[in-house]
């Protein structure tokens, strides 16, 4: 257990706003990138981060040291992302590639996210292709792959966050990798 984090949790529990702000500082961007990769939408990613911290704040006294703070906060954020992906699905499948526009899928047609940042344009063609392939992963593989790769979390940590046995995580990493390999086979 990270000593600094458990100390900050204790202080925040006593009502120390600055300590909570410190926790926000530590995790905000990590969670944002995870959520952004999951949802592929800036606004939704920010909403998820905001809601995660609200939940953390309201449930601080329920947090116990048996779990790493990072595991706990990632668990909350991942669940929020998965919920959003599930709610999105029945409307229309974003994963389905449009037949009209070659290579475009539903994600690229979400109107709310028109704030394309200038440096996103700096992404190489290779990176863009890979991100597209990751976006098409089914949610259960996507979650595992993103958690595993984005912050180099161990298989055990990913298992803790998703509350699943490590063997399940391994299987999902293998299937996810296989899925991506087939997607990228002819494009790279």
């Amino acid at each position: 257990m990270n000593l600094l984090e458990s100390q900050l949790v204790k202080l925040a529990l006593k009502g120390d706003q600055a300590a909570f702000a410190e926790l926000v500082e530590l995790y905000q961007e990590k969670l944002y990138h995870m959520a952004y990769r999951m949802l592929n939408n800036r606004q939704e990613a920010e909403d998820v981060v905001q809601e995660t911290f609200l939940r953390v704040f309201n449930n601080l006294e329920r947090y116990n040291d048996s779990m790493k703070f990072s595991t706990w906060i990632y668990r909350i954020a991942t669940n929020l992302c998965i919920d959003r992906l599930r709610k999105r699905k029945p409307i229309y499948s974003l994963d389905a590639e449009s037949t009209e526009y070659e290579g475009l899928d539903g994600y690229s047609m979400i109107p709310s996210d028109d704030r394309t940042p200038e440096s996103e344009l700096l992404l190489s063609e290779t990176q863009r292709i890979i991100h597209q392939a990751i976006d098409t992963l089914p949610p259960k593989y996507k979650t595992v792959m993103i958690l595993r790769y984005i912050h180099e979390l161990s298989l055990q940590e990913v298992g803790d966050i998703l509350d699943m046995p490590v063997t399940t995580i391994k299987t999902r990493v293998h299937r996810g990798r296989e899925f991506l390999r087939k997607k990228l086979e002819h494009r790279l």
Partner: protein
Amino acid sequence: MNCKVAIEFIHQYLDGELDSKQFEQLQTHLQQCEGCMKTYEQLERTDALSRFALQSSIVNTGRSEADVNQLKHSIMANLPKHRHAPSKARFVRWLYRYPGLTAAAVFLVVMVFSFFASWDHDAKLIISGSQDDLQHIVINGNTVIVPEGVELTGDLVVENGIVEVKGAVSGNVTVIDGQMVLASTGHIAGQSKVIDQALDWFWYKVTSSFSEVIPQ
């Protein structure tokens, strides 16, 4: 080694979970099997590129310092002012800590309420007795009359009314919140009681429920 095992070993190798002996076995197979070698190269590239793409996008998603600060500000601004009313939380925690006491307190509250509710109800005339006896009774307003020449064989209980006994009653007569008038011709073989106080009434309820339970 067959190809299925080889693929599994490749994944484990990329997970960093293959020991050196297994790695040697895999190498031997890859040198002989062109298909697996190709898959291995693809998987290795996929793995490295995914990691690279996901991690480099952290540096490279175009989040300006303003974006970061704005999000932080809105997180802090949207937190509730007080996490919760502490006294309430303490009370609720107390309830969880002493479930026995909580149950006892709830039981007591319910008992007290039901007691007062049943004692202090409206002034409805209630008569109870055996069915044969009730046929002979005359009710006039809130007055219950046992007419002359009639003999009641069982007990008679009247709530919120006046009882005039002109005939004979071989059982007990009990009047709750009312009056009893015994005419000169009347005769009560059993006990006669008038109850109009909560404590008496309560005592009566308790003793009567016991005497009902225990046959005399």
